[in-house]
């Protein structure tokens, strides 16, 4: 049992982190704070999840979203995808283990991974629409969001969704508003089996160690932690019983990283692009300085008069 985050006192307290703790801000440069806050993380132990969706309900309740009542298409996923009103989603996969011939029912809680190197933030063109706090939380700031959908293209996990109501992007906030006052995320609080636990990133890694040892002792030789290095690690991690095959968990990416196309778009294209435009303008300017305007001469006018006059004679 991992000791859950205790309830905070009822006395008003200043928020535990804020604008002074930003380490990244979309389309802006920030001076990171001298002292980084302790990194936090949520650990989702897939092997302990019973698919009750209490976390989904808690998320809806805390964030006061109102997902549409859906329809059943024959699978347990409900709704069928993340939406602007559903920041987390239990994804159910049926997997036949070729080694044991057992049917395994894999349930993964999908949602924002809070990457250390967030692709959404890299792609975002609006200053301050996406921020990253020094404790690792990646958060969307709706007042600054312009609804362009670039974050969707930047995200290696296909998480952000644009609301059709206010045309801004939504995703899991890691309950930044709860954490700021010393609470844990709503989903972790609601989970009846402690499949979701929350603490510092170090604590979560240690806790995961114990879980992995336990799973290995029960025959899951490939049990392991999902903390993908391609995005600098994440602040939402999974314990997987088949960590060698993350894709069997409803297409969890095997080695996620910011797409090289996005890197090229947000990297060399910006600098080279502005340089090309600048060079085109400067070349024109230089050419004008060197060669001056190309003027029609008197002789040209006379030649034209002669040509038109001559030819016009009947």
């Amino acid at each position: 049992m991992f000791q859950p985050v205790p309830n905070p006192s009822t006395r008003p307290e200043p928020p535990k982190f804020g604008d002074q703790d930003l380490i990244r801000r979309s389309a802006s440069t920030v001076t990171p704070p001298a002292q980084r806050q302790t990194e936090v993380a949520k650990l989702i132990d897939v092997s302990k999840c019973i698919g009750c969706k209490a976390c989904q309900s808690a998320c809806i309740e805390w964030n006061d979203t109102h997902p549409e009542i859906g329809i059943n298409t024959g699978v347990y996923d409900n709704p069928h995808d993340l939406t602007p009103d559903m920041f987390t989603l239990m994804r159910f996969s049926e997997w036949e283990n070729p080694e044991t011939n057992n049917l395994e029912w894999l349930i993964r809680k999908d949602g924002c991974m809070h990457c250390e190197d967030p692709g959404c933030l890299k792609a975002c063109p609006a200053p301050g629409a996406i921020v990253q706090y020094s404790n690792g939380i990646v958060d969307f700031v709706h007042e600054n969001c312009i609804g362009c959908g670039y974050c969707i293209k930047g995200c290696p996990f296909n998480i952000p969704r644009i609301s059709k109501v206010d045309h801004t992007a939504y995703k899991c906030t890691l309950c930044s508003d709860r954490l700021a006052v010393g609470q844990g995320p709503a989903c972790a609080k609601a989970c009846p089996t402690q499949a979701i636990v929350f603490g510092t990133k170090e604590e979560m890694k240690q806790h995961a160690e114990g879980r992995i040892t336990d799973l290995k002792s029960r025959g899951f030789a490939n049990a392991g932690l999902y903390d993908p290095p391609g995005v600098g690690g994440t602040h939402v991690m999974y314990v997987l019983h088949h960590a060698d095959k993350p894709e069997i968990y409803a297409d969890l990416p095997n080695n996620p990283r910011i797409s090289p196309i996005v890197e090229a778009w947000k990297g060399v294209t910006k600098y080279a692009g502005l340089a090309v435009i600048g060079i085109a303008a400067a070349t024109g300017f230089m050419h004008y300085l060197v060669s001056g305007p190309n003027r029609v001469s008197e002789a040209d006018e006379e030649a034209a008069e002669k040509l038109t006059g001559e030819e016009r004679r009947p």
Partner: protein
Amino acid sequence: MSTDYDVGKGDKIHAGKPVTVDRYTPGARVNHWITATSLVLLALSGLALFHPALFFLTELFGGGPLTRVIHPWIGVLLFFSFFGLFLRFWKANLWKREDGTWLARIRDVLTGHDERLPEVGKYNAGQKFVFWAMSVLIIVLITTGIVIWDQYFFEFTTIGQKRWAVLVHSIAAIVIISVWIIHVYAAIWVRGTIRAMTRGSVSGGWAWRHHRKWLRELVAKSSKGKSGRTPAE
């Protein structure tokens, strides 16, 4: 009637001192300026999202969200408006033998030695390059633009396709803005050009100096019209 590929409906010589030559009809000019305005607005609204240093340009359009909303609609306007120009001008922009010679003497072009250049029709190779570059780039921009127009077209493509589309869109935008700079610069550098798109006419000397073949065709056409005879082919 003239069958010259590059002589437009309204192209006409007015004799006198100096000679003036009608080059663009009012319809063509209005069409051109709608296209020009939309291209500039697209460049400004697009560049606002292209680089954080240019985000302030969103103020021109009433803020970030409105810039995001309005840009693709101006794109649609540009597409149809340019299509009008395309229908008007494509024939006169077909590649001709003298265009190769003209290009080979690009040094003389840049140093203003027009007397060393072959006689060209209504458009020279540089103008034809701008025309075809714009045509191709606008098709690329509208195609990729629709792919990344998430408000209406999100479901139709995958995220992988959208990533390519936004990359290609931004590169095509850079290229079209550079082509536009060349286009505007050429109009400023070659004196007497801008009035073609404002008042619709150029001076005879301008036509003689820069588009002599076109001028000769017009002369031939008008003498034909005047005399009412059809010369032997």
